[in-house]
Each structure stands twice: as structure tokens, then as C-alpha cells.
């Protein structure tokens, strides 16, 4: 029998994050394949309601503590280390999200276990745990195996179906009594998203621009396309970081998750952080000069071309069609 597998449950402002269910789902399968128990742990303040949703795990450990409102990676790593040693856990799954960034490396350092980031798939072959990670912005995949099935794994959001981690079963909850160390880091406050002129999560049609747009002046042409389509313009991170569009238009990991009926991407390479925020759109059409761009992997239709060669014609043709 394999030693237990532990999922670090992630939540933000009292709501359980989808990544938690993704990890519980794949964790359940892994635990069954290895004939190992599946544990889940929740650290937080007033957090018991969150724990009750995790009945798919064999045991749910809860540490409810006023100092755990927004714990720093240091504090979480220290608590995880104690729990892992107490419960003899061999494999830990942590969300590859902004909320959990840094916990995995810290834990791996303290436990002297390997850390594997950007994990897209986990499987068991001949009793041995294998992992597939995406590297180089999703352009290359890498397979590794964990010696002794021991390690700390950061699971990339959107890699596993969250529904597989949901269960009606009553969670078997064990309240933990661990000492919470004083953190050097103080959480002051949340900063709410700036209200943009347009809420891109509520648009049926989005035209998205990426690095391929080359400069701010070209945004006007994209605005025109969005106008004739009756949609709005959004963007991937590099365009936002350049200040060419406001933060409220960002799609992806740190920005918005969108599910429009049409997502037309222009010069977006499809880095994993971006794909995470748009992959569930109804219809995805992408124009990119690079035929191997990862965006084509999630698109329904692709056009390998320079967006500037297509756009003027496309805009005119749509106008003609609409007036026809």
C-alpha cells in the first residue's frame, strides 16, 4: 500500500476554488490506482463550510485559525510540513495559481523532496507515478517520474475536470490543532478590480489581441472589427503590461475568465496563462503567423497568416454582409 496523497485545498474569500476540485478529482483517481488514502487539508479563518464540500477525500483536515485569513507561503509551508510528517504523506498536490505561488518550492526545500511545476497530467504506470508538465509557454511537454512516488506537485489550472472532484458524500472532517507561526508578512487588504468601461465577462463576442498586434496604434483597427461584430476588445497579458489596454480587459490567469459565444484571437500565441481564461469559449477562431502557436491547439478554426493581411478585408466583408 502506498502512503497517503494530500491535496492542499485552495479558497479565496470563503469560496472554494475550482482548482481544488480538479486536484481532488485527479487525486482520487491516483489514490485508487495506488491503493492509497486521499487526504485534503484546508487552512483558513472560518473555513469549516469549505471543508464540508470535500467528501471525495477519505479524510479532510481543517485548521481554523484567525491568523490564517490570508496566510503567507511561509506559514502554509510550515503547517504542511508538520502535517505531512505527522500523517506520513508522500505526495502533495498544490494549485498552480497566483494564490498558492511559492508554497511548493518552499515545501520541497524544507522536506528535500522534488518539486514539479506546470503539471498538466498525472498517471500511474507499473505502480510508478508519472507527471507531464508544460514548459516554454506550453510549446513543449516534459515527462518525469517521481522516485518512490514522493514529491510536491503544482497542478496547472484547467488540466483536470473539476466535476470529478465533487461528491455528495459527507466529508470526514478532522480538526487539526497545530501551532501557527507568527508570519513576518502582514496582509493589509484586498484591492478590488478597477471597474472597466466594459465587463468582458458579459460579452457574447470578444476580439482578443496579443503580442502580434505590434503597437498601440493598431488597436484602433481591432476596435473597428469588434464594433462591426458587435463585440468588445480584450487582450492577453503582454498587451496589458504595455499599457495599450486597461487591466479590466485582461483575459487569463491574473485577469478574467471569459466564455463568450465567439472568441476571435488575433496575434495571441496562446501561452497557458492566457488559454486558462478563454478555453471554454463557444467558438474560438485564431489568426497567428506561427503555425505551431499553442493557440491553435484550443481553437476550432485557425488561420496561419499575418493579422494585418486579413483584418482590412475581413472588416469590409463583414460590413458588406451586414448591409446585404
Amino acid at each position: 500500500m502506498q502512503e497517503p496523497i494530500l491535496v492542499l485545498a485552495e479558497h479565496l474569500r470563503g469560496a472554494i476554488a475550482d482548482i481544488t476540485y480538479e486536484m481532488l478529482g485527479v487525486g482520487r483517481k491516483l489514490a485508487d490506482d495506488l491503493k492509497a488514502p486521499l487526504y485534503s487539508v484546508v487552512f483558513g479563518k472560518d473555513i469549516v463550510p469549505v471543508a464540508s464540500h470535500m467528501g471525495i477525500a477519505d479524510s479532510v483536515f481543517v485548521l481554523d485559525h484567525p491568523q490564517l485569513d490570508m496566510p503567507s507561503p511561509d506559514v502554509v509551508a510550515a503547517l504542511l510540513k508538520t502535517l505531512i510528517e505527522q500523517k506520513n504523506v508522500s505526495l502533495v498536490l498544490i494549485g498552480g495559481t497566483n494564490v498558492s505561488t511559492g508554497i511548493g518550492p518552499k515545501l520541497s526545500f524544507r522536506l528535500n523532496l522534488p518539486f514539479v511545476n506546470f503539471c498538466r497530467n498525472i498517471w500511474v504506470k507499473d505502480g510508478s507515478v508519472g507527471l507531464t508538465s508544460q514548459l516554454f509557454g506550453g510549446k513543449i511537454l516534459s515527462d518525469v517520474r517521481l522516485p518512490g512516488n514522493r514529491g510536491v506537485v503544482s497542478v496547472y489550472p484547467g488540466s483536470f475536470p473539476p466535476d470529478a472532484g465533487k461528491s455528495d458524500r459527507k466529508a470526514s472532517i478532522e480538526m487539526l490543532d497545530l501551532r501557527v507561526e507568527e508570519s513576518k508578512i502582514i496582509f493589509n487588504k484586498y484591492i478590488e478590480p478597477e471597474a472597466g468601461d466594459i465587463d468582458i465577462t458579459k460579452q457574447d463576442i470578444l476580439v482578443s489581441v496579443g503580442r502580434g498586434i505590434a503597437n498601440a496604434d493598431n488597436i484602433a483597427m481591432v476596435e473597428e472589427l469588434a464594433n462591426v461584430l458587435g463585440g468588445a476588445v480584450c487582450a492577453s497579458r503582454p498587451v496589458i503590461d504595455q499599457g495599450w489596454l486597461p487591466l479590466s480587459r485582461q483575459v487569463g490567469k491574473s485577469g478574467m475568465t471569459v466564455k463568450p459565444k465567439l472568441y476571435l484571437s488575433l496575434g495571441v500565441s496562446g501561452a497557458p496563462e492566457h488559454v486558462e481564461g478563454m478555453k471554454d469559449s463557444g467558438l474560438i477562431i485564431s489568426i497567428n503567423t506561427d503555425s505551431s502557436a499553442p493557440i491553435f491547439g484550443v481553437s476550432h478554426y485557425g488561420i496561419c497568416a499575418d493579422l494585418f493581411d486579413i483584418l482590412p478585408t475581413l472588416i469590409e466583408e463583414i460590413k458588406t454582409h451586414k448591409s446585404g
Partner: protein
Amino acid sequence: MDIVVFLKMVPDVVEELVIGEDGKSLDTQSLRMRLSDPDEHALEEAVILKEKFGGTVAVVAMEAPEVEEVLFTARAKGADRAVKLPGDWTGIQAPAIAKLFASLFSSGSQQLTAHTLILLGSQAIDDLEGEVAPYLAEILGAPYLGVVTGIRLDEEKKKAIVMKEFAGGLRGEFELPLPAVLGIQAAEKPPRYIPVAKVRSIMKSARIETVEISPPEIVSGLPVDRLFMPEVAGKAEMLEGSAAEVSARMIEILAERGLIGR
């Protein structure tokens, strides 16, 4: 304030990546290296902080193709010191890189005090661990936060007030005592552009220091079984032809789904 920025070169993913004959690493012949994007933002944030709060900026990088150009560019942007760590660092991974960077402080080449702020890119795309900053913070015993997009300094209280991203545009404000290690996701302004002429001119007046540091015993992590390309073309149906043909087909597809009206 002494700001230290660790920079790392990574393969340029705009270029085609070729898997080497061993099937476990990239073919280095065809690689073009560039400064890791988040590192470029870390450098920008350092220069912004220097402009706002004073102090000095030191940039440090492992030897790699094109790295000197990057270090001179950093000097042109406002860094006061550029340090290269000589050696062949092919295949070195995040935990070992952190050890190497930490040695800069133990070697005495750079001070670590309550006036030191250490910035790195929050993530890198080129190794399995993908994050150097939290490992470095562990070794130095300094507080750490990642995915940072804004910093204010309170020199008197020896602390940094930082903004960290969560999701959906939500951010949080945190305070860390110095010295601290921060993983930068994005600078508060886009990285500045430096004309080539200015870089050329600084190449004549400035120099890059080299600091010899003995390599950590273990440089790589888990052995990679294989590298492979994702099945990219598997899903999208590619539309081909002239701009007019492609446009007509797109309009057809949109019309079929009622996404475009007359």
C-alpha cells in the same frame, strides 16, 4: 536602498523549438536566448524604485549567450552595477540557481542588510520548478511573495508594501520587512525602451564585473524521461486561401451559428 535584481536568459519561444537527439533536452544549436519576460519587469520595477526612493540597483546574471547585451542594456536603463557569474550553466535548474545566487551574498560581493530588496521574475518557462525566488528566500531566510505587480518602500520602517495579484483582477496589499525577496509578475509601467545607440555608448564607458562562484554540487533536478511537442494542430481546422477567401469562410461560419446578422 540596495536593490538586487537577478536576471535569467531563457529560450525565445517565438522561435521554433527543436528537441535534441537525446529526446530529453532542447537542441541548443537552434536556440535564440532572450531575457525572461518577468525578469525584464523585475529590472524595470527596480529602476522605477530607484527613481522614486533613491538607492542603487545591481543586476546579476549567469553567463549565457547574449547575456552581456542584456547586462549593458540594464546599465543603460539605470542599473549601477552589472555582475556576470561565469561558467557553463546549461541544464541548471531553479533550486541550484537559487544556491548560486545566494552565494553572491555569502561571498561578500553583495551586502544583505535591512536595506536590501531582492527582485526576480515571478516565474520562468524553462525548467520544471519554474520559480527561483521562493528557493532563494528559503536559503537567505528572508520573507517572500510572488506575483507582485507594485512596490512601495518605507525606508524608515525598513519594510516594503507590495501588491500581489490573485485572479479576476483582484489584488492584495501586503507588508514585508527587509531584506525581502519578491517575485515580480509585472512592473507598474511597461519596460522602458532603450535605443541601441545608448547601449553601444554605455558598452564603451561601463564594464561588467565577473564574480567567480563555485557551482552547487547538484545542478539539475528530476531526470526527464522525454520532451515532446503537444498535439497543436489536432483541434483547429485551418482555413486557407486569400484574405477574401478566408474572410468569406469566417463569415459563413459565424452566420451558421447566428453570430453575425444582416
